């Protein structure tokens, strides 16, 4: 068994100890564990974020394998549990809290009160707007990093991170909607996930601008 100390020493030591200490103390809540959320959670776990709260109601479907972090062995299992297992194989010392529930208007307060860094990674644009509006209206201390616009095979370079509001960062091209005829593929979804994960790390290190 690899120990916590071994894993900590195996981090890129060209960064100072303080950087990893900040990551270790940090807590990030990820809402939605699809193509964005599953990949973001793994990137944050690899970076040594101390606590991840993972929220999703769904189970892994065979149609998720084209872009989400799951494997055939995870089909029909809750995404929360599958992702907990995958992260455990990368770094078993990351604290993982899972909530297997659908986020609704009614349970927003129960699920997000006290969360200071929230990663919005839903699929449905109305749910994206619901969560972002709730957090900006009701939780004045919370910063949100959201994903919007990563469908298709358009130029990778159109996917950006923008600070759209005081406490809202949006990653994506903000245009490429997923619909019949334009689906989601691993590369652009992963690029967008990388933007979101990096912005979250930047916020933890005190970098406020996109």
């Amino acid at each position, binding site marked *: 068994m690899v120990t916590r100390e071994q894993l900590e020493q195996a981090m890129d030591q060209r960064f100072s100890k303080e950087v990893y200490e900040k990551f270790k103390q940090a807590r990030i809540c990820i809402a939605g564990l699809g193509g964005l959320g599953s990949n973001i959670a793994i990137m944050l776990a690899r970076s040594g974020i101390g606590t991840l709260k993972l929220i999703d109601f769904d189970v892994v479907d065979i149609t998720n394998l084209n872009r989400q972090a799951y494997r055939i062995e995870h089909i029909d299992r809750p995404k929360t549990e599958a992702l907990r297992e995958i992260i455990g194989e990368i770094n078993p010392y990351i604290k993982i809290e899972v909530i297997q529930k659908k986020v609704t208007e009614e349970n927003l307060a129960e699920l997000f009160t006290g969360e200071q860094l929230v990663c919005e990674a839903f699929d*449905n*644009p109305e749910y994206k707007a619901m969560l*972002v*509006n709730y957090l*900006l209206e009701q939780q004045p201390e919370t910063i949100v990093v*959201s994903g919007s*616009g990563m469908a298709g095979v358009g130029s990778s370079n159109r996917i950006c991170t923008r600070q759209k509001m005081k406490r*809202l960062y949006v990653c994506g091209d903000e245009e490429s909607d997923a619909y019949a005829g334009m689906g989601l593929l691993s590369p652009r979804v992963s690029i967008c996930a990388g933007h979101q994960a990096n912005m979250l790390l930047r916020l933890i290190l005190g970098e406020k601008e996109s």
Partner: protein
Amino acid sequence: MVRINGEDIENIEGKSIARYLVEAGYDSRRVAVERNGAIVPKASYEEVIISEADTLEVVSFVGGG
């Protein structure tokens, strides 16, 4: 003059946020709106009237994740 998403827009003062969103082709269920640096609560879109020198930021979410 009102500034919306970084562009100057004329003749919009006096309209509600709700009316502006419809006229500009937004689906209000998919947006978040900031006015002069403060989030506009969804429940207030009908009541909040755009005034001279306002700065608005409208974020419209698209599907996929």
